[in-house]
């Protein structure tokens, strides 16, 4: 008989092996799914890989697609580490784009060196406002943050819908359309990197943000307080930590990170404010953060993986004959196997004699 026994500490070799097994098992499950619908497995994987990493352009696309979900993933990490189960990332992405757009209107014509930091910050400020709302509702009115952030997600979508439709930001003139703002002026596009058409300067930000998050969480007093808040807020309160303030810091930081994703999407990718390109970035970020084991660097890896999948998916859809919804299915399957691997990594298999 074999039995699983918890390890006292993690063995990095075994951890790596667990995750490798998870990837293999995940791939096997995906292959099984493909077989079940009669698709050509080799073609699908080929297309996926080519689209994800097959060329410099594919890599650039992967990076661009990874950028917002790494950021929403980091937003998740910060909040979930404190066991503040905010699922407001989705709405905060919208808020970030809206804040950025407002900023661009107010600060039009500024020199780029000031303009981009300013609009990204104004986007983040909007996300912080949403984080502040959730924290305030929790601290002052004891409203569970799951409820408040979920509700805010709906509200922000309707707010944007109103702003873009009857409201002040709707596109006027020739093409009255489904809820979108006019195109930003070309000066307001995030500058491109390496002369690439897709790679914008914003792709650097998630890496910087992840590094900062990692240091803050594991090595600063604030990080200790954030982790402690997740484990035992009562003890923290007894030891002089202002819980209410920490909740504000956590939810506002989380909001800012998610909002940054929205602002980058606005200035780097879509170049106009509309809802449909932002949908799902927040929820995907939650998954990415979780696959990353609620660790910033893990989140970066998971985000790159998901970005690669998204980028490869386009190839797959164009070249293969499988429904594009395979990609969310792959994401879900991967998540499951990663969760299992995370558990496996903490255990070791021992043989026990049957008595």
């Amino acid at each position, binding site marked *: 008989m074999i039995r699983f026994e918890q390890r006292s500490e993690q063995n990095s070799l075994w951890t790596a092996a667990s995750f490798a097994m998870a990837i293999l098992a995940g791939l096997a499950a995906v292959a099984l799914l493909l077989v079940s619908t009669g698709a050509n497995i080799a073609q699908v994987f080929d297309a996926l890989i080519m689209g994800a990493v097959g060329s410099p352009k594919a890599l650039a696309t992967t990076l661009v697609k990874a950028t917002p979900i790494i950021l929403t993933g980091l937003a998740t990490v910060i909040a979930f580490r404190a066991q503040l189960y905010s699922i407001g990332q989705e709405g905060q992405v919208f808020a970030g784009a809206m804040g950025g757009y407002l900023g661009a209107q107010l600060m039009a014509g500024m020199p780029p060196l000031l303009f981009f930091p300013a609009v990204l910050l104004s986007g983040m400020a909007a996300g912080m406002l949403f984080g502040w709302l959730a924290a305030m509702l929790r601290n002052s009115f004891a409203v569970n943050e799951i409820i408040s952030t979920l509700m805010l997600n709906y509200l922000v979508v309707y707010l944007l819908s109103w702003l873009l439709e009857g409201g002040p930001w709707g596109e006027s003139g020739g093409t009255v359309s489904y809820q979108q703002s006019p195109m930003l002026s070309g000066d307001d596009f995030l500058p491109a990197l390496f002369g690439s058409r897709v790679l914008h300067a914003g792709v650097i930000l998630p890496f910087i943000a992840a590094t900062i998050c990692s240091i803050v969480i594991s090595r*600063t*007093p604030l990080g200790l307080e954030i982790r402690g808040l997740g*484990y035992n807020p009562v003890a923290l309160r*007894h*030891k*002089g*930590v202002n819980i209410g303030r920490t909740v504000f810091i956590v939810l506002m930081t989380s909001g800012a990170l998610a909002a940054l994703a929205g602002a980058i999407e606005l200035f780097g990718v879509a170049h106009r404010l509309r809802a449909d390109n932002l949908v799902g970035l927040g929820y995907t970020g939650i998954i990415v953060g979780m696959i990353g084991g609620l660790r910033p660097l893990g989140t970066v890896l998971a985000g790159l993986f998901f970005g690669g999948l998204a980028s490869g998916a386009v190839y797959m859809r164009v070249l293969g004959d499988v429904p594009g919804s395979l990609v969310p299915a792959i994401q879900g399957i991967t998540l499951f196997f990663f969760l299992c691997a995370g558990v496996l990594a903490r255990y070791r298999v021992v043989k026990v004699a049957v008595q």
Partner: protein
Amino acid sequence: MSTALRVEGLTKRFAGVAANDDVDFDLRPGEIHCLFGENGAGKSTLSSCIFGLYRPDKGQILVLEKPVHIASPIDAIRHGIGMVHQHFVLVPEFTVLENIIVGTQRSGWRLNAAEARQKLKAICDGYGLDIDFDAYVWQLPVGRQQWVEILKALYLDAQILILDEPTAVLTPGESRILFDIMGKMCARGLSIILITHKLIEVMQSNRVTVLRKGKVVATLNTAETSPDELARLMVGRDVSFTISKQELTPGETVVAVNKLTAVGLWGEAVLKDVSFSVARHEILGIAGVAGNGQKELFEVLCGVRKPKTGSIRLMNEEIAGLTPRCLMDRGVGHIPDDRFREGLVPEFNVAENLVLGWQRSAKYRSGPLMNAKAIARLARDMIAQYQIATRDEKVAAGKLSGGNAQKIIIAREFLNASGLILANQPTRGLDVGVIEYVQSQLLRKRDEGFAIILASEELSDLFGLADRIAVMFKGEIMGVVDTKQTTLAEVGVMMAGQRLQTAHSLERIQA
């Protein structure tokens, strides 16, 4: 002679460390057999192995001299073994009856409470216990909750009862009742394994087995041994029980509490007009049955509960309503009674817990980051100084036994406090060796000029350490007496709700 239970060569390891190492142990029918040993000696582990919660790595268990295989508590229960755990395993939101019957009904759809009620009533009548089966457990005082735990085991027809530190949460009076009942149980043929750190209680048993670092050191007939010998066996050195307190004249007043009131969650008064003061070089003892406002008083004093009215002056500065942070910065140290909830973050490692609350102080920081080296150095110092039984400073605090967890808190608070120390039940659940250490540390702090407020249900603690004793009853102070001029009886009467003046007169009448 036949035994009720026998354990042979039992070994249980956790992550390579032997919590029980080749333990031999036997329990005779109708006896009370004490397990005695330091915190972390492996007493709870042994009990858990017998009860089927842990599976031993080696060894064998015999019930009535027949080898049995105990893979889960269900096997243990089938063999007539019952256990009362070191920490309550109750559902506060359930009634007493529900707690007892949950999971015992084997057939039928509907909850069948009537039959259970009868059986329980018979048990209670047999032992002279009086308990309201329909009260919610959260409404019961801690002492009563312990009865519920014992009833759970009796309801399942236990013949062998393991009681893991049952008296740690009982008042002396309640402990006496428990021992009476244990006597009755033994008379009916039950055999009892009793774990306790209190030597007075150990001395009331039939036999005692001393564990040290997972090994059996000795099994003795209690009648043939003495507290001193037991303590020596347990620690491996002599332990002095006489507290030698230096005569000191109290200095300036450190903290003065005046007409302090506070209310609970639902607006009920939990503190009523509490007034007292404590000076340098002075220990004020707080006596009282648990749940009479001691906890709330400490919470107000350490800042986690806002007072409603009244004043608290610390070094002549008003501090009522200040945050815990402000109070910590003003030198107030606090040892809470619920160590894993209020004192520690169990998931944090020993080192992190030792700096908890001071993580932002310059001592432990280099720039914006925490100084891991300085923290590790501090942790190793503290582990050595307080003899915290842990492999190293990176072990999660939640993995340590209760006594060692308490040492982390004491180490941290003693290190950081500079004027006032609040200690709520600091010796609860500690072994005599550590109790001696904690007591001597408290006295050392007193010598250094600290003011100390010490609540304890061990009147021996208070009479040994405190200069004055304040007695609390239902959120009020019944009176403050000088330790040297009072008696156990006077304090006892006040604990039952008589004011000092009446207590005096009562005593006079009795005398």
